[in-house]
């Protein structure tokens, strides 16, 4: 039953998750690791930028509301960074109000997922968002 939920695994992909909520980080990392990803964690945007510089992931899951540096500032700085501006970033947020998705996409995020994440369906949702954003996992894997 479980393997049915993850028809395409994230085997071998490096994923960075940025979130200030420990539970969110924990749940997301368990689910992604279960799908085969190598997960790095950051507790805010600045932490995330440091992490990228030491180890570049294939894609990033990023919360929007965070202390120190929020998701909006993170995406702004990332898109201005010559070395990493092409990194794929999916917003993962509890900001599920009308217009938030449009706002996130126009700010430079490649996709948008809302919390709370549902472990049984999250990987499929993620794959669909990545697919919709024109991101192919096979290409991401070869990038590594």
């Amino acid at each position, binding site marked *: *039953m*479980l393997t049915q*939920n993850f028809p395409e695994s994230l085997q071998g992909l490096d994923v960075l998750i940025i979130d200030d*909520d420990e*539970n*969110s980080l*924990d*749940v*997301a990392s*368990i*689910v992604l690791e*279960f799908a085969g990803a190598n997960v790095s964690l950051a507790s805010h945007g600045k932490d995330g930028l440091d992490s990228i510089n030491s180890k570049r992931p294939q894609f990033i899951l990023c919360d929007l*509301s965070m202390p120190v540096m929020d998701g909006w500032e993170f995406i702004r700085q990332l898109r201005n960074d010559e070395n990493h501006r092409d990194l794929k970033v999916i917003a993962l947020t*509890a*900001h*599920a*109000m*009308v*217009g938030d*998705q*449009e706002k996130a996409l126009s700010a430079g995020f490649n996709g948008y997922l*809302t*919390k*709370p*994440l*549902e*472990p*049984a*369906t999250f990987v*499929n*949702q993620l794959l*669909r968002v990545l697919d*919709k954003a024109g991101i192919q996992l096979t290409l991401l894997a070869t990038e590594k």
Partner: protein
Amino acid sequence: MFPLVRYFSLTSLIVFILGFILIFANTHTNDINDLVDLREQNNVALTQAYANTIINDHGTFIASAATMSVDEITASPEFTHLDDDLRQLTQGSTIIKVKIYAPNGMTVYSSEPSQIGDDKSANPGFLTAMDGGVASELVYKDTFNAFEGNIEDRDIVESYVSIQPTGADEIQGVIELYDDVTILLNRIDERQVVLGAGLAALLTVLYLVLFFIVRYAEQIMRKQRTQIESNIADLASANSQLKIANQRAEEATRLKSEFLSTMSHELRTPLNAIIGYSGIISSGMSGTVDEKSMRMIKRIQDSGQHLLMLINNILDISKIEAGRLTIVRDKTYVRDVTDGLQEQLQVLADKKQIAFDISVDDSVPDYLMIDSERVTQIMINLLSNAIKFTEEGSVKLDMKWQHGNLNMKASDTGIGIPAHSLEYIFDEFRQVDGSSKRNVGGTGLGLSIVRKFAEAMDGTVTVESTLGEGTVFTVVIPAETVEEKVAQAV
């Protein structure tokens, strides 16, 4: 304070005074002129009357005296005779002095003897009289030598009149009469004073009447202006109060939407842990758990999801109430919507071991301009309801394209809805079975949100149900194809 009254009182006062002076002076001048004219006519008539006596009795003397010396004249008995006659003639009349001139201008007689012999040939009055005319003049004398001797403070009309007895061809001389009009003049002056006082009183009364009329009018005007000003002030204050109220309402709306945004975030964060961890355990990601624990974990997971749905519904209805519901129609791949629905609802159907199927007719375009979030939410609400109320059988979604409308039919083989309840199932906070029999939770907001979303997208939602057999909800949303949208843009 009363500008109108001030302007009026000043201008009208000037006009009244000028008018008074004009009328007063004009009347006086006319009276004096009339008096002189009257006395002149009188003097002419007197002269006419005297002329026969003077010329018949003294014509010879007057004619001869023109060539005599002053002493010869005064010494002659004819002179004394003439003097006596004249005094007698003027006795009792207002004539107080008489002079007679010979045609050559010589003064041959005067009641004041020192004037005899004076040459008047160049005197304008004498010349006028010699030409057949009459010349009169009003003069004032402080002392005057009259028949009666010296008199004082006299107004006198002096008239030069020609002496021409009836039947005579030539003018035989000129007589100058001094007519005392002091009494008449005094009478005129007295009348003038009375007239002036009357006129002044009349004008004063008129002035006062006008003054009070103007003052009263101005008071009314001021009252009205004050009223208007206070009305304007009232309006302005009402206006500013409205503005403030409006600002407060706007501020309240802004605060409310900020609150909603915060609530949404804050409530979802702990739910993330509840739904996340229970989901991880129930899906076996953290290894196997015994059956009893699994059952409890699944209860926690279901409750978490239920709570999430309630929160979403409450937030949605609040957004609708706050007037913040905006429809964003974007190019949507219809498959994405159905895939998302399949993914979220299959889980629920699987739990109840009922069939769940979505079928999309070939007529439905691949891409449509719709608000995918809203359409998804409508269908999740309808279909999760259907699954909730169906114990066996199936729940289906059939999607068709009909005349520019996306037609979505959600049907189930559930308990159905009683006919009498169909009319209010779309109302807020209403559940079909309000009794204690209910074994499924809900806020009663789900269908209300469905209808409001559908209406916001210019669509409709209808329901048909047979008790014990099932229910069919039909949502019809008008939508443009991407080609139509492109054609419009061009």
